[in-house]
């Protein structure tokens, strides 16, 4: 159908793009199978004897350095990341999906103002709230609790979910829901059986993006939580040690920290793109 020259151009453009975006990932993957000595060679080389020592160190929690064996809490950090991200996204979905529905379906006094205010939290510089927040959390007794962190994480996840899901609801015809209510189903049943299932691609995609952003957060947990509640983003800095930066372990940590998100993304692949489109479900 298409001219071969276009196909070649398109193919090589894609190849270049994949190279740019995936080369660093590939390099990190390679690094995760190397010892620090292999990584710190001049000039860098491809050939090396692969080792699983980085992964072993991460998973066993023992890091051997020149200044002795250090305990590392990577698995705990990974668990914290999972807990914080999953709980934050779940809370955001519970709070945000009904709100998104309200903004999409009803025109009500102050509705737009509330919607914009919610969005504007996404735009507030995190540091702006972070500075007094630690003081405030101290008063509320939320310092160093998962609950407090999940609350603050709402600043990241809630607006994203709210706005993407709202667009999705807006583009879906309300008549399908009307029909269901006329059939005799309550509002709540209609919301849970019709509105939400139909918006599932949008919810899945928004949830995934929110998950990624929550997962990548650094500064909130750093300031507000003690070491045993830190996510991987902060925890991986523990590999910057006096005896040298443990690049191999950092690389392995990145690989391991990407895996859950990647798995989620591949699972949600079929909804991901469709879900971010404002395009409605066509009956």
């Amino acid at each position, binding site marked *: 159908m298409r001219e071969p020259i276009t196909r070649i151009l398109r193919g090589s453009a894609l190849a270049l793009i994949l190279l740019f975006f995936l080369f660093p990932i590939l390099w990190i993957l390679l690094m995760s199978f190397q010892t620090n000595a292999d990584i710190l060679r001049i000039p860098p080389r491809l050939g090396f004897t692969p080792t699983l020592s980085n992964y072993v160190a991460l998973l066993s929690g023992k890091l051997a350095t020149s200044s002795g064996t250090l305990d590392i809490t990577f698995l705990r950090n990974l668990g914290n990341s999972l807990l914080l991200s999953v709980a934050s996204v779940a809370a955001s979905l519970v709070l945000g999906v009904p709100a998104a529905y309200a903004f999409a379906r009803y025109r009500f006094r102050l509705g737009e103002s509330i919607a914009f205010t919610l969005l504007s939290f996404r735009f507030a510089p995190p540091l702006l709230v972070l500075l007094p927040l630690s003081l405030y959390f101290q008063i509320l007794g939320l310092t160093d609790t998962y609950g407090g962190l999940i609350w603050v994480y709402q600043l990241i996840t809630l607006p994203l979910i709210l706005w993407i899901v709202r667009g999705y609801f807006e583009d879906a015809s309300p*008549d399908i829901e*009307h*029909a269901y209510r*006329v*059939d*005799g189903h309550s509002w709540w*049943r209609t919301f849970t059986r019709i509105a939400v299932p139909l918006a599932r691609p949008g919810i899945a995609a928004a949830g995934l993006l929110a998950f990624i952003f929550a997962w990548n957060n650094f500064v909130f947990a750093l300031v507000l939580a003690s070491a045993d509640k830190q996510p991987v983003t902060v925890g991986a800095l523990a590999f910057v040690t006096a005896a040298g930066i443990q690049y191999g372990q950092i690389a392995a940590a990145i690989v391991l920290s990407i895996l859950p998100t990647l798995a989620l993304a591949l699972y949600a692949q079929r909804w991901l793109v469709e879900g971010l489109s404002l395009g409605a479900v*066509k009956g």
Partner: protein
Amino acid sequence: MSGLEISGIRVRFGHAEVLRGIDCRVAAGETVVLFGPSGAGKTTLLRAIAGVEPAASGVVRIDGREVQDLEPEHRPLGMAFQNFSLYPHLSAYENIASPLRARRLRTPEIEIKVRRVADLLRIDHVLGHLPRELSNGQKQRTALARALVAEPPVLLLDDPLRNVDAKLRYEMRLELPPLLRKTGAAVIFVTQDFREAMALADRVVVLREGAVLQDAPAEEVYGAPASVPVAQLFGDPPMNLLSARLVQEDNRVRAEAAGMAPGFPDLDITRMEAPLLGVRPEDVLLASPATGGAHAEILAVTPLHERCVLLLRAADGTELVASMAGAAPDPGTFVSIAGARHAVLFDPASGRRLAISDARTEVVA
């Protein structure tokens, strides 16, 4: 009373009033067609009745019970939406079963009822399909089945034939009246197509700009539109509206225009500046030029169904539309206008109907 009774329904969208106090009654077993141009508020009225569009004021009674303050799910009615509004993630079977499930019927009972209505609408072979796997006609029948399945006392059908092809529409026009009558429900059927209205309606309610223009049996709306707008809306091709001259004659008044001069025995006004004479195209009596009468030039000819429609210029220069059976004459030739079989006279200022012609046909000398 049993059936549907609405009064004083008002709906506002922001500052615009979309429905300005609608009153209407539909008896059980009766089919009322809600007719009007787009934007008239037909769909809004159905929605207000169903409760999915909040009404600013007004009363909706179903079988004598006020329901305007109830949520949609508590109103005993069924509704078919113009765009079908099937649940895309549920099979046709589940779509149809939905009202029954809402009423918590037991599974075998649901099965029986769904099968029955599906048989009736000839979609029993596609019950397992998802909506996107259905043809438009099947979708339409599924939507209809869903509205019918719980045998509600009130049925609201929002232009259900609009999105289906001509053949199916024709079939459905024939099938629907007995079907609806069988349900015994009070039916409101929305359409923009006057033929559909004529075919289905026990009564037609003509709606424009949020107000009822006429509420009468279909033949009456056709034959005796209550006002100029109704005359313009209802009918295809629409009624000729010709500026007429009143002529007092014995015990009646004649209105002369374009070579026609129907008589109006009940008219008590004798003098009026240019009243409007409404004549349906098929009521324009045509004759060959040889038979005398007023000559008119044929400007254009279009076939419409089994008849052909002629655009004429009468001797006095008035243009009008007539229709006739048989072979189409050539444009440029002449016919003779012999009179009007039936005509309506309107007040040009208010647009209101003044009188209906008597049965005698007259030919102007």
